[in-house]
């Protein structure tokens, strides 16, 4: 527990700085967009309805989905204008959060400006103020407290929603939450929630001070709130200014422990080579490959069967070696992506059951499962049920389950334990298979391809000696036992390690340290 808290604090300067930078930029961009819109909508009733309706509509999109939508949107936009736009990381997060922050400012802006006493407006007209002078000298000062209340709401929303930028590759306080959720590290989850709540509260209080100052025309309050915000933001973002002279590498990771550990292991090797490395964690299978092909990340570990079916769209299942060779050739030719080599272990999708349950039902292979399936519930990870592998298994063995449910990988094992699910899409390198006393069902018809873990490098780093030097010693050197051990140390309920500790232990175990 104390160890975890210490580990969490060590990451705080970087996560907090990124979180503040992102929220602040998004809020400022949102204000720059929404204030003129609010003025326009307040002046013109025909504009008012569509603008407010659109802002409300954006608000109904779940924050995570809005962030995710900007990935394909930016890719499409990039190809439209013939320029590569960064589709992961800061830009999509900034745009999504800025959009998200607009509604309260728009709504309060319109309310505040249209709420100005008509007599006051007539007096301004009668004195000979131009519409712009009326806006700046009369309408905005009078609407300021109401607008500021909207800014407060927007700030709290933005700071909260910024935690969702982690899956699109922008580090934030959400990194605690997402990685904590994957590795069942509840200390991290709570730490992330707490930190973002404290940040939101602090921003809210300081903005509240400004709001009160505006309402009471008290310059001291406004000044105190403003100084508090500036100083707080500057302190939080100061760690980002620490100048990094070393070459920077970004290592991608999907959303489970093994990926976190391997990304950290590669990053660790790079740092030994004198480079700086940063992880982008929690990326989906399809997003992560496109991010690599686009150069948003420099390297990551994927699995041959996944690439074969999802990226190349192949339905045939060649031998392990033939698949690797074909992948190496095809990925290079089509995407310029380099397959450095296989790490030496496989992480296959394998349907797993509790050993005693399988024994009782007499199920040893996928073929045995077919007659029992209509009485059983299948639990898949978040992508399994929509992947071609599942379609292939289902076709080959004629499996029809009573129900099919998706879980976050961590909760999938819990569901099996608690009996909510009878069969799950386990990962063969997962330490929990042995620890939880599970059996994986054999695939006699060969419906599932091989899933050798392979290291991929982006086109722009294809000839990068430092990266290749860091990765090559790992090729063929990670046996499945070592990987399972590392995974289990992170996934187990007691004496949990952080992925960083597990990576260090793994490096030691395979002798590359």
């Amino acid at each position, binding site marked *: 527990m104390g160890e975890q808290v210490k580990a969490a604090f060590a990451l705080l300067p970087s996560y907090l700085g990124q979180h503040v930078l992102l929220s602040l930029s998004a809020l400022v961009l949102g204000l720059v967009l929404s204030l003129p819109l609010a003025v326009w909508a307040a002046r013109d009733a025909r504009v008012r309805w569509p603008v407010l309706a659109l802002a409300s509509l954006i608000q109904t999109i779940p924050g995570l989905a809005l962030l995710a939508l900007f990935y394909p949107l930016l890719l499409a936009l990039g190809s439209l204008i013939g320029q590569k736009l960064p589709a992961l990381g800061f830009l999509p997060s900034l745009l999504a959060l800025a959009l998200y922050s607009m509604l309260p400012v728009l709504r309060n802006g319109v309310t505040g400006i249209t709420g100005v*006493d*008509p*007599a*006051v*407006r*007539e*007096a*301004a*007209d*009668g*004195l*000979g*103020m*131009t519409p712009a*002078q009326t806006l700046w*000298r*009369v309408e905005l*000062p*009078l609407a300021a407290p109401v607008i500021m209340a909207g800014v407060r709401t927007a700030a709290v929303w933005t700071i909260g929603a910024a935690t969702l930028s982690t899956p699109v590759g922008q580090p934030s306080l959400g990194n605690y939450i997402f990685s904590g959720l994957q590795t069942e590290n509840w200390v991290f989850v709570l730490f992330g929630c707490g930190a973002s709540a404290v940040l939101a509260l602090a921003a809210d209080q300081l903005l509240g001070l400004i709001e009160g100052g505006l309402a009471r*025309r008290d310059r001291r309050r406004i000044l105190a709130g403003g100084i508090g915000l500036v100083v707080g933001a500057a302190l939080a973002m100061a760690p980002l200014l620490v100048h990094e002279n070393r070459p920077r590498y970004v290592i991608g990771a999907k959303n489970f422990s093994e990926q976190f550990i391997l990304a950290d292991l590669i990053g660790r090797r790079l740092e030994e080579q004198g480079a700086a490395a940063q992880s982008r964690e929690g990326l989906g299978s399809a997003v992560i490959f496109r991010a690599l092909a686009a150069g948003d990340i420099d390297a990551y570990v994927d699995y041959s069967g996944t690439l074969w079916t999802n990226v190349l769209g192949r339905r045939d299942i060649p031998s392990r070696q033939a698949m690797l060779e074909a992948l190496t050739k095809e990925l290079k030719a089509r995407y310029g992506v380099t397959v450095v080599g296989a790490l030496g272990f496989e992480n296959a999708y394998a349907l797993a059951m509790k050993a005693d349950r399988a024994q009782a039902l007499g199920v040893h292979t996928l073929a045995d499962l077919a007659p029992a399936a209509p009485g059983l519930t299948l639990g898949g990870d978040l992508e399994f049920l929509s992947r071609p592998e599942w379609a292939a298994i289902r076709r080959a063995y004629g499996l029809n389950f009573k129900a099919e449910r998706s879980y976050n990988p961590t909760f999938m094992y819990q569901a099996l334990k608690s009996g909510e699910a009878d069969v799950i899409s386990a990962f063969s390198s997962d330490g929990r298979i042995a620890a939880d006393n599970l059996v994986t069902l054999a695939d006699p018809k060969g419906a599932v391809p091989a899933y050798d873990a392979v290291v991929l490098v982006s086109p722009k780093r294809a000839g990068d000696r430092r990266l290749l030097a860091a990765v090559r010693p790992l090729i063929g050197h990670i046996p499945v036992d070592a990987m399972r051990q590392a995974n289990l140390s992170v996934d187990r309920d007691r004496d949990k390690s952080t992925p960083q500790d597990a990576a260090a232990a793994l490096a030691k175990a395979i002798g590359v340290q």
Partner: protein
Amino acid sequence: MADPLIELDQIGKSFDGGRAFALRDVTLSLAQGSFTALVGQSGSGKTTTLKTINRLVEPDRGEVRIGGRAVRDQPGPQLRRGIGYVFQGIGLFPHLTVGENIAAGPRLAGWAKDRTAARSLELLDLVALPRAVADRRPAELSGGQQQRVGLARALAAGPKIMLMDEPFGALDPVTRLELGDAYRALHQRLGLTTVMVTHDVQEAVLLADRVVVMKGGRVLADDAPRNLLAGHPDPDVAALMSTPRVQAERVAELMRSGPGG
């Protein structure tokens, strides 16, 4: 009659795409230094007529000229900076102090800061408010004090013309009388040309030196108060102008009948 300062030449204004008329052929010629009251019932077009002078309302037909120059050819804000405007709603800026309210006009005219501040105090004296109210907010003042500030604000940039729309309408009778008399004195002292809209005939005849009676967007009568009070061939005008006299007679009768009981 002195040279006309404000001329309204066959002003017409319609609403609802020509179905309803606010003004029909209103022609007035107002002399420099005159105090004109526009009277009539609600909807008679008196406020609309007043607002065509400072372009808060644009007429559809006809021309308004000030000093021989068509107001249509001058930008509205520019024009209005040279004309004082006081109305029943007062419309003091609640976020500014009384002093800052009065200084609004001079600020728009680009006066220097110290000159503006001095002017605010000077105007408080003029409208008989203590200088100490300069630092208060409008909300802290009574209705009568607020309209005095409204008056001061309208006069601050030194206009030669004052347009007033029911300026004392929302005040109690005592304050109303007092402020009316105070304004009448200012009008003379500053050599202003005043156009005041009111539905109170008594106020009109006591303050103005000329009364214009309007009905249905037309001018029914335009004469000195004394002449109109003596009678008029138009029954509407005669009825309206008889109200102060009828009231006075009833009051006199009431007083003759001695103490009631």
